[in-house]
């Protein structure tokens, strides 16, 4: 019944690679691509050089990665950073995830596990590189000691250590055992970026092979010995409670083991197979107490947001000059309202977690964006101390922010507690994933500008009315009424600063929350803010009779990096060229997550039907760790951003989300996908994120192009069936 759980003794000296997975027949979070290793009968000796680097005596190097891999390629990028300083042979590199429990026991040597906000690389590049460099120094010191020469006369490259004066060489594997016994230096100098040989190269991802053969086990695919499967139905009205339920029929159905009321708002069925559990769950009659939330609909939410546009209870996120006075005395004033709907993350792998609970110990196998907070959630739900719990991270079948929330893990733990000693895999249906999402915040925006004699905005007021993610995130701390994160792309300074020079600028937020909780959704608040701002700038350019590119240029005199990506995208698209009737080019630009991104879209609208022909994108992330993966993120961001812009919308009726699957919540298909040409133009000197920024420019670039093609201005997303002619 129980998995045979080997005790993993985590010491600095010896580390049994792969043992942390602890599941027979399932290599979790491990990749051993070298067939010679698999063929080997002898288990090679393994030495942990430091927390980041394990070296086998057969020269294989295992690099540990604390951040999660959900498709964004951070895994490979972080390994490149460690390997660069380590000077190992790239062909010998494999990887593993340290567990949050190991991290806790060892004093967090891997730092933060959180994977979100496009921070995977940019907030850990320094200490992971240092980890690689320190390991290299230890390996060199071991070799030098063997040769009785000073370490500073030796160097390492491609896993080989050389004593320059004598020409003697040895390998990492040969000195690993000794290196593991040495004390690392207090500090180490990192390479100058101009000397990088692995960082900056378009190396292939390290997690591809098993993804094309179907061999990679995602959380949804796990099968532990003796495991039972659970399906769940939680109150579709968030905040509602379970009043009563009747599972008489379900209990008689094949394979059903148990009906479990979960929390105060859900019912789960545990069965031999997931399909049996789901079939039985569908027969359970549940009555809910939905309270006032059950009377909320989209019209009521819209009315609330509209009221916020004129409200006085606002938080000012950015104010310079005297915007109110300039607008009041405006000679030429332009005003427009925009809106952005609820969106669901909808990763392809629905939410799931597998939990094994006993009175003494609890373990979970879970696709999570934050192993450490998963461990906390697990321990809380398990009723055990954290050192009696462990989380085994898995590669995620998509995250997009959703898997930084662990409601599904808590549910799985509560179910597992009712069946001690038996692993329980809880898998949500797609419908559950839609109904019980935490959604992209819904907001509405009014932009008001006064134009000077040159037609440029001398004042701009951006009033946002809508939800706050921080408010949802920190209910325990007392709901903040001030949410600075609302102002991404509009902020006075920092990673999300407004790029345009406008002397009188005011961005304020009327917080209007709903019973549907908002959450971080790939791109977060930059998505709607950049859509609002970049669309409205085109409106202003039109009013001023100016070319949209030239208009932006005049507002970007102080922002050479922003201007550079904009100019490049426009130039690559052939901005200004003659286009047939019904075709148009559209621009968008932003600086978010510390990167500069721009897009120029070419579209045609024929008989009211939109065809997105091509998008030229330009990205300056400062340093480009893996250009081909940046290109993949940029291209993919258009799919996520345009799925939302064109199709994605969750509406609310009687307190519930109406769109329960991909038939009513469609995602972009390949037939709609424009060609994408991406230019990665790292200017150096800073570290920007790449997983999210481009999403923000997707909608405004395309919809500005639609305007150029048709004269139709789309101000409310999604485009869906709005007339384009």
């Amino acid at each position: 019944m129980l998995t045979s759980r080997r005790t993993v003794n985590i010491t600095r000296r010896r580390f049994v690679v792969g043992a942390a997975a602890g599941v027979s027949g399932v290599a979790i979070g491990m990749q051993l691509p070298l067939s010679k290793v698999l063929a080997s009968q002898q288990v090679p000796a393994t030495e942990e050089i430091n927390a980041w680097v394990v070296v086998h005596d057969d020269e294989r190097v295992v690099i540990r990665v604390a951040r999660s891999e959900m498709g964004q390629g951070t895994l490979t990028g972080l390994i490149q950073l460690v390997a660069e300083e380590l000077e190992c042979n790239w062909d010998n590199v494999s990887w593993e995830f340290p567990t949050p429990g190991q991290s806790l026991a060892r004093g967090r040597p891997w730092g933060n596990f959180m994977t979100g906000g496009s921070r995977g690389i940019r907030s850990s590049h320094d200490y992971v590189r240092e980890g690689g460099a320190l390991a290299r120094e230890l390996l060199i010191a071991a070799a030098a000691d063997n040769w009785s020469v000073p370490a500073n006369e030796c160097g390492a490259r491609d896993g080989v250590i050389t004593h320059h004066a004598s020409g003697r060489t040895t390998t990492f594997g040969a000195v690993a055992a000794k290196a593991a016994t040495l004390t690392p230096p207090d500090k180490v100098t990192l390479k100058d970026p101009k000397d990088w040989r692995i960082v900056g190269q378009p190396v292939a991802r390290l997690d591809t092979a098993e993804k094309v053969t179907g061999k990679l086990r995602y959380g949804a695919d796990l099968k532990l010995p003796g495991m039972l499967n659970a399906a769940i139905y939680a109150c579709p009205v968030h905040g509602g409670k379970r009043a009563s339920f009747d599972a008489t029929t379900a209990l008689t159905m094949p394979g059903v083991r148990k009906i479990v009321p979960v929390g105060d708002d859900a019912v789960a069925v545990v069965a031999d197979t997931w399909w049996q559990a789901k079939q039985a769950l569908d027969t359970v009659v549940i009555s809910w107490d939905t309270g006032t939330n059950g009377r909320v609909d989209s019209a009521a939410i819209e009315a609330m947001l509209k009221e916020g546009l004129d409200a006085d209870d606002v938080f000012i996120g950015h104010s310079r000059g005297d915007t109110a006075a300039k607008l009041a005395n405006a000679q030429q004033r332009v005003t427009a309202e925009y809106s952005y709907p609820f969106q669901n993350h909808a990763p392809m792998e629905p939410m799931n977690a597998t939990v094994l609970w006993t009175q003494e110990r609890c373990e979970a196998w879970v696709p999570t964006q934050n192993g450490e907070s998963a461990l906390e959630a697990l321990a809380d739900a398990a009723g055990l101390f954290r050192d009696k719990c462990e989380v085994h991270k898995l590669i995620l079948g998509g995250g997009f922010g959703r898997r930084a929330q662990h409601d599904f893990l808590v549910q799985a733990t509560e179910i597992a507690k009712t069946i001690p000693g038996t692993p329980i895999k809880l898998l949500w249906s797609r419908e559950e994933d839609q109904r019980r999402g935490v959604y992209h915040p819904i907001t509405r925006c009014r932009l008001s500008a006064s134009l000077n004699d040159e037609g440029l905005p001398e004042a701009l007021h951006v009033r946002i009315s809508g939800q706050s993610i921080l408010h949802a995130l920190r209910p325990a701390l007392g709901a903040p009424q001030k949410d600075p994160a609302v102002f991404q792309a509009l902020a006075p300074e920092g990673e999300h600063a407004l790029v345009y020079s406008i002397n009188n600028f005011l961005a304020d937020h009327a917080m209007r929350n709903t019973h549907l909780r908002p959450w971080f959704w790939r791109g977060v608040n930059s998505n709607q803010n950049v859509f609002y701002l970049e669309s409205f700038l085109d409106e202003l350019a039109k009013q001023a009779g100016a070319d949209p590119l030239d208009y932006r240029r005049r507002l970007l005199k102080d922002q050479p990096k922003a201007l550079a990506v904009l100019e490049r995208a426009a130039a690559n698209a052939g901005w200004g060229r003659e286009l047939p009737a019904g075709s148009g080019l559209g621009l968008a630009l932003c600086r978010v997550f510390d990167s500069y991104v721009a897009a120029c879209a070419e579209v045609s609208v024929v008989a009211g039907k939109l065809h997105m022909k091509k998008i030229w994108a330009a990205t300056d992330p400062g340093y480009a760790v893996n250009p081909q993966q940046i290109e993949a993120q940029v291209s993919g961001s258009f799919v996520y951003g345009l799925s939302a812009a064109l199709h994605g919308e969750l509406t609310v009726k009687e307190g519930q989300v109406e769109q329960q699957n991909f038939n009513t919540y469609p995602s972009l298909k390949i037939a709609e996908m424009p060609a994408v040409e991406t230019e990665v133009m790292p200017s150096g000197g800073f570290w920007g994120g790449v997983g999210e920024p481009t999403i923000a420019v997707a909608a405004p670039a395309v919809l500005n192009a639609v305007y150029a093609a048709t004269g139709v201005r789309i101000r409310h997303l999604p485009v869906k069936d709005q007339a384009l002619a």
Partner: protein
Amino acid sequence: MLTLVINGDNIEVDVDPATPLLWVLRDHLDMTGTKYGCGIAQCGACTIHLDGVATRCCVLPVSAAVGKAITTIEGLSDDGSHPVQQAWVELDTPQCGYCQPGMIMAAAALLSEIPHPTDADIDKRITNICRCGTFTRVRAGIHRAAAIHQVAAVTEAAAPFFEVKA
């Protein structure tokens, strides 16, 4: 007891005949390369070949698959050497990868029917959802797989006329 032919093997399963083939594969046979994404044949993550035809098996009762040749991602090749898989590795197509077995099965079925598909063929036949947004490389990958397949076919045809050196 039903007998299924999966990846060339006869396999007996004791299961409710109404169970979707997807869940027979996943729950009963532990063949988890075929993914659950939506359960209503919208996303294509569960795409397999049924007598060579790309089929979304989340809505296909297992009884309807009896007597037909079922090919899953596990059986597309023994070692990841199918031209589509080769092309996918070459181009680093997957991101999260969860939709990719279904995407690959859909692409492989397209190529077996139309060895050199046009972009319009791809638009018409590849309707799988990928939330990471790998479409640019999926399209390039299908064209690349067509080229790999052609080279392989030419090499095979030419083999008898050349001395093969070890």
